[in-house]
């Protein structure tokens, strides 16, 4: 699977995550799924910036009300929910045990933005299934 993310949407996530420091920030991603031969291609067409109702630098929960509004917006725009994103203010861009435990959807892409090194933020996408997290191919496009 290849996942494409517009640089402008990456910047949107980054700017929001930095503004939410020291807490974790979170949101949703939506887009279009297509097939190129046997390979699945996912284009992230829209990123949603949601409230972390935990207001914590160690964990996050998406606000269900905002989640509902986001799902409605995805439907209205013909987009497919693809997964979610969250930031790690002080740890690397990889799934924590808690991230894995609470990743219930094996079809979702879980994006994690590390702000551990503020001058070098890192965004990766992960597939989580059967208690294992695997890094996916995330490609930034103009």
């Amino acid at each position, binding site marked *: 699977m290849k996942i494409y993310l517009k640089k402008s949407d990456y910047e949107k996530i980054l700017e929001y995550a930095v503004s939410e420091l020291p807490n974790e920030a*979170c949101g*949703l991603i939506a887009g279009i799924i297509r097939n190129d031969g046997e390979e699945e291609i996912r284009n992230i067409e829209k990123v949603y910036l949601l409230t972390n109702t*935990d207001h914590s630098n*160690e*964990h*996050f*929960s*998406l606000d*269900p*009300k905002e*989640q*509902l509004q986001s*799902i409605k917006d995805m*439907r209205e725009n013909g987009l497919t929910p693809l997964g*979610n994103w*969250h930031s*790690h203010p*002080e*740890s690397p861009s990889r*799934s*924590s*045990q*808690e*991230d894995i435990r*609470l*990743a*219930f*959807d094996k079809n979702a892409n879980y994006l994690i933005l590390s702000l551990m090194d503020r001058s070098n933020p890192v965004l990766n996408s992960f597939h989580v299934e059967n208690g294992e997290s695997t890094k996916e191919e995330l490609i930034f496009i103009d």
Partner: protein
Amino acid sequence: MTITVSGNKKEVKDELTVAELIVLENVEMPEYTTVSVNEEFIQRGDHETHKLKEGDVVEFLYFMGGGRS
């Protein structure tokens, strides 16, 4: 009666409860799922008694969260 579930129209029996719909839809991890009907959140304790009506719009919102530990 016809209701809309996760964006799709469905024919279901009259007075179907939210709890019955959860079973019907094979909702995974219902303990981590919030149900909204016409954009109102239904408390978990009301799932057994909340009866759906013609034209209701139902969404299942899966808990999304994580942590550092």
